[in-house]
């Protein structure tokens, strides 16, 4: 589904991604772990098309097609979704207005009928239950005045509504208390199926207690320095990222 080949990207002249290679198939969950400033969030944003990052080399293939020249909305319509680490507050734009427009654009792209307001209401009600959100959140301005946990749940609500093929979860777990983490994780688990794929960017192993990854990758200094199964996350939790550094040095890779 997603194939990243030797991807390089910079922001304001500083190179952040220094040759990323990664392949994610349908039905898989990949965790991208790494210390602060390693380039994890950048990777997610570049795949989603954030205009602040300049791609200086490599390819991002989505179902075989290079998407790097596409605008963010075109990527979204193809089925790529970014759950933000810091969801943006948009005063004056109601949650339901945004989600309905997004969902309808995506449905149109897929050749499905657009929802009228009443159909949308029924549709979104189910999704609200998934993240245990009250209906009144629909009428409120997008993320405005939401608590940290509410903002993250709102991201999962949008994820559920838009039914992407590839979900890029940028530190969705950060700042969540244990209840919110449980709700967010169970939401993701319910959405997860054999047709879609998740890239889970996280600093901590904690969320992986709830969502079992198929692969774990360690990103350091703009490169993936180690990949493994779910046990790699536990090892990192145990030994910290320093262990990888010393391990790499022993092998002469750093």
């Amino acid at each position, binding site marked *: 589904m997603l194939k990243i080949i030797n991807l390089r990207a910079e922001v304001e002249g500083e190179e952040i991604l220094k040759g990323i290679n990664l392949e994610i198939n349908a039905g898989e969950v990949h965790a991208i772990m790494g210390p602060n400033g390693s380039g994890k969030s950048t990777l997610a944003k570049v795949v989603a098309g954030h*205009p602040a990052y300049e791609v200086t080399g490599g390819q991002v293939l989505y179902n075989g097609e290079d998407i790097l020249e596409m605008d963010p*909305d075109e990527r979204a319509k193809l089925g790529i979704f970014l759950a*933000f680490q810091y969801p943006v507050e*948009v*005063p*004056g734009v109601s949650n339901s*207005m945004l989600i309905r*427009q997004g969902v309808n654009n995506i449905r149109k792209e897929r050749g499905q009928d657009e929802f009228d307001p009443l159909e949308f209401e029924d549709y979104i009600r189910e999704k609200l239950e998934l993240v245990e959100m009250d209906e009144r959140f629909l009428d409120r301005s997008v993320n405005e005045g939401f608590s940290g946990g509410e903002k993250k749940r709102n991201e999962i609500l*949008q994820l559920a509504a838009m039914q992407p093929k590839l979900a890029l979860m940028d530190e969705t777990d950060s700042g969540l208390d244990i209840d919110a983490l449980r709700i967010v994780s169970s939401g993701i688990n319910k959405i997860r199926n054999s047709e879609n794929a998740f890239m889970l960017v996280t600093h901590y192993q904690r969320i992986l207690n709830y969502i079992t990854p198929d692969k774990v990758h360690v990103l350091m200094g703009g490169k993936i320095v180690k990949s493994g199964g779910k046990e790699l996350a536990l090892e990192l939790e145990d030994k910290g990222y320093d262990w990888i550094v010393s391990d790499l040095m022993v092998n002469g890779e750093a």
Partner: protein
Amino acid sequence: MTDTKGENKTSFLAELLNKSKFGADEPGFLQKVRKTGAERTLSLPFPTSKVEEWRQISLKPLERGEFFQAERTAVNESEISDFLFNESSQSRIVLSNGRVQDSLTNVSGLVGDCFAGTFADMPDKYRKNVEKRFNSVAQYGDDPFVPFNTATFGDVIFVYVPKNIQEKAPLHIMHVTKGDATYTSPRVFIFAERHSDITVIEDFIGFDESTYFNTAVSETVLEDEAHVTHVKLQRESTNAIHISRIASHLGRGSNYNSYTISIGAKLFRNEPLALVDDENAHATLDGLVMLRGDQVADTHSILDHLKPNCTSHQLHKVIAHDTAKSVFNGKIFVRKDSQQIDAFQENRNLLLSADATVFTKPQLEIFADDVKCSHGATIGQLSQDELFYLMSRGLSQAQSTQMLTYGFALEVIDNLPVESLRDQLAVEVERFANSVSAQKATV
């Protein structure tokens, strides 16, 4: 200012005045007031950009133009059907070129003693207060436009709400201008007695791209504990020049909410003036200005706290596109003994193009020492983070721009008390934002 200079500069309004004629059949009271307006117009200098209050805009388009007193005309219902409000179907006054058009006017829905109409039709019992206060609120400094309006008004609309009357139906006063190179001087006077309540929407409508010049003046007198909401909706033709004052005088415990929504006109100058003249009163002077092309809008407001223990709120929002220009000068005075004042002022400007210009000047003059006055002014573009967020949800750049622009405007629109007014404005904002994004796509 010297006499010679003054004489010279008065010429534009004086000439206009001299070539205008007014029927001698109007009530003596109005004739008398008109005369004082004419005398004052002739004695005051015409503002130039050398005068501080007029520094940022040019009145050249006005002086260069040749205007004539508008002739009587009639509008068809179909011409104004898009501008009507359901809530006001029986509380509507239509003026075409400054004269009441009876065929489209219907005020049968106003409760019992509440009056809206011309002086000649007004019950005698309201005359005393009207004669005492009419033309006593709007004049400020040596501004010549209010006197000019006074000298040249057509049918003045008097609105009188007696004691304890709560008028539920919003009064919709439509000032429709038809014709080229005309001028009209719409005038409205609202008197709200003790503990009364009314909403008045003054709606200025023009068609196509006709060129004309309007001076509009409205005055509101609020007795103790009266509540008045005044909406000024400026949707003149995009070639019109519109210069106006919205004046109010607030009594004890009264509540005055003024909203000015500006969409049209080539040159719009608006001067809200609130005299908060007794304790426990509250004044709101909010505004929303949407500009494109080479439109110019200038808001010079004065909020004068003359007595202690009062509050005020002023949120002025501007969206400027193309080469449009906006000016905001918000004066708040807190007089020496006006303690315990809580005044809020904010001016937020959204620039949608590199060539749009915004001048903003909050001006607080506080002579009391125990007050809370906050003010802020921001000028910015659409946030890249917000745009990316919306686009990552599958919204096109055009849709995202439209939604964010709408969101910016909504804060003002949301406070308006009439649903069909809010609905019409939502459409206007959408149309505005669409034209912005459509233009961007073709660049």
